[in-house]
């Protein structure tokens, strides 16, 4: 394995961060804030570390699969550390562990925060916090690859490890084109949402930050009360629509926009995703209406927002779900497992896999009833091979194993079971809020440092779809 080559690629990745760090420091300069020096200094460090290997290491066109994987995992870890520096240097509630947790949470678009008071943060740091979502959402690596001219061979290797296998199967484009599509859709969604939020009375700065947090399905807000602060039906409506769209396969959104036949209205995965969220929203609203004296329309407003927020792994809040009935909490936990579609910025098991698994249950039952028949699992006209079914089965099993290990490790620190479980799930699926100590209006500050580090690893595992991260540490031969 050629370390200098890996360092060169990671250098390019962190240069992307430098651009956003410079923009954040411009905000600090404009508002004359204490965060100027931490942001500017980190921008200088990242630029130096980005340029240094570009100067000394010659350009390489060929990358081995293992090198590609190391770049992706190394890139995420390095950006996590780089992103933590402005927080750590600024101080306040940010110890190094807290800063690293906040940074990883931002990049992995989890949206779990350690901050008890978000509003004391200077605007420069708030913008940086939202930027980590924006960079992380589309994948730091993917971002670097679209912008920087590199050979197709290197791109393929990196792309294979960054994008979920399911997403690749659906995307049927050439790699370069696919990456451009992802970026176009991402930026377009962000722009439109910013304009709509601004038009709805939200300040421009907040609109940009919230739009970054929505399209990346992150969930970092600029106010302590999250979206509830604005108490606006229009703003909640816009955010719900964009959270939903950000959970759809970006390639499908692009095709829909181009009025192609393969669009979001004909995709069975999107249909399952839409009706799933609709049914859960209605069920939660009914339960809230029956169990409490909340009017049905208000219950529906809360339930739709929270369902879409959790179901797309965003994590914005308009109400405290900790005080909701257990039945509704169970439904939200189910959505935290499932999350949204492959090919979007969400994590978790993903709707595509869930749909295949539900269909394979029916196929297995059919096979048992008629042992000699030949039955296959089909999604639209696409036959899901046994190989894919096996991979999905192993993925889901591994997902639960990691969830179990993480919950067990956290409970070692005498933290209650609901907190241990929901914090592990919320970070592994990159959702953000869990229940009990880490509820929708609480934060992760009270947890011990070791737990925060476990959860940071969970977030990285979730973002890299488990396999990418694990295979790096369990590979037998280091070439």
């Amino acid at each position: 394995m050629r370390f200098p080559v890996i360092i060169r690629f990671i250098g390019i990745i962190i240069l992307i961060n430098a651009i956003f760090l410079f923009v954040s420091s411009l905000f600090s300069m404009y508002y004359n804030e204490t965060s100027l020096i931490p942001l500017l200094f980190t921008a200088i460090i990242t630029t130096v570390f980005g340029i240094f290997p570009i100067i000394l290491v010659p350009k390489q066109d060929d990358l081995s699969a293992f090198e590609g994987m190391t770049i992706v995992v190394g890139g995420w870890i390095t950006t996590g550390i780089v992103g933590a520096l402005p927080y750590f240097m600024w101080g306040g509630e940010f110890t190094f562990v807290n800063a690293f947790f906040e940074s990883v949470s931002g990049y992995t678009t989890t949206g779990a925060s350690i901050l008890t008071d978000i509003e004391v943060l200077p605007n420069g740091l708030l913008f940086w916090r939202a930027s980590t979502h924006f960079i992380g959402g589309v994948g730091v690596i993917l971002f670097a690859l679209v912008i920087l001219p590199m050979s197709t061979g290197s791109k393929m290797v990196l792309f294979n490890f960054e994008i979920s296998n399911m997403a690749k199967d659906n995307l049927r484009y050439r790699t370069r084109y696919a990456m451009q599509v992802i970026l176009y859709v991402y930026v377009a969604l962000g722009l439109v949402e910013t304009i709509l939020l601004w038009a709805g009375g939200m300040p421009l700065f907040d609109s940009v930050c919230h739009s970054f947090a929505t399209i990346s399905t992150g969930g970092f807000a600029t106010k302590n009360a999250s979206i509830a602060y604005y108490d606006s039906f229009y703003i909640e409506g816009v955010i719900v629509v964009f959270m939903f769209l950000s959970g759809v396969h970006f390639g499908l959104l692009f095709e829909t926009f181009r009025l192609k036949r393969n669009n979001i209205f004909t995709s069975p995965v999107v249909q399952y995703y839409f009706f799933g969220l609709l049914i859960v929203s209605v069920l939660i609203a009914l339960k809230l209406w029956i169990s409490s004296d909340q009017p049905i329309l208000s219950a529906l407003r809360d339930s739709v927002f929270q369902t879409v927020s959790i179901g797309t792994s965003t994590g914005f809040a308009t109400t405290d779900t900790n005080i909701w009935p257990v039945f509704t909490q169970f439904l939200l936990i189910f959505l935290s497992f499932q999350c949204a579609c492959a090919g979007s910025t969400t994590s978790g098991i993903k709707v595509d896999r869930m749909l295949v698994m539900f269909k394979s249950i029916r196929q297995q039952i059919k096979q048992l009833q008629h042992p000699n028949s030949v039955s296959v699992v089909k999604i639209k006209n696409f036959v899901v091979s046994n190989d894919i079914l096996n991979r999905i089965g192993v993925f889901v099993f591994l997902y639960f194993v990691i969830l179990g290990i993480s919950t067990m490790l956290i409970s070692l620190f005498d933290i209650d079971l609901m907190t241990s479980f929901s914090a592990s799930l919320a970070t592994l699926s990159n959702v953000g809020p869990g229940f009990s100590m880490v509820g929708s209006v609480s934060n992760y500050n009270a947890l011990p440092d070791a737990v925060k580090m476990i959860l940071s690893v969970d977030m990285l595992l979730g973002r890299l779809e488990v396999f990418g991260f694990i295979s790096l540490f369990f590979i037998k031969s280091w070439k």
Partner: protein
Amino acid sequence: MKIKAKIFGGFLTIIILLFAGAFITVFQFVKLNHNNRQLLDENKQYSSAMYNVNESLNLYNDGVLSLLTDTDRQAVELISKADSLYNHFVIISKELYKTEDEKILLKDFNEDFQKFRQYWVASFFKTHDLQFYLSTKEPEFKILRSSLSRLMLVFQNKLLGDSEALYEHFKRALTPGIVTIIASLLLILMFNMMFNRYYINPLSRLTDAVNKFHYKRSFKVEIETDDEIGKLAKSIEELTKLIKK
């Protein structure tokens, strides 16, 4: 890119980092020193203000006691000294209590103080009524003391807040320095690794290949870079081809 330019570029990036780190650290410490001095000055002024107001209260007391023992001249002297100390306190405290809430508290205290002075110091001058003095002194004095305690508490909290801010500032001043040291060490390690891989090792390989040419009569060496070393390898290869002919 030529080796000279690469090495220069490598060193330049390290120098930029060190310079930025040093500049920011020095700038932060200068600012910290300024804030620290400001805090010390405020603390000094506060001590002086509190000394003045306390001393002034004691002198009023002494002045009244002097009146009781019929030494009017000494009493007048003591009370005018107390007045001067109180006036001094008024000047200093105006600079110390800056926010609206603090100004209200200061105004309340000054009103209580004037009342206290008017009520029994000035009245006693006129009446010399010991009974009146004893019956009104205690409650008036208590009101004034509690008013003063509130004023002191506000400033102490302010000092505490300032000290915490100073500690935060100290951390902010120190961290860039530590980060610069760690980052520079990392860059130097990377420089060493890359220099060995792309400039030292190729030269060793080239030397080995030339040595082997003596007995193998074949020259084969792989150079990844397109700089002087790469060109040297190509030239030697051409030379070996000529020799073989």
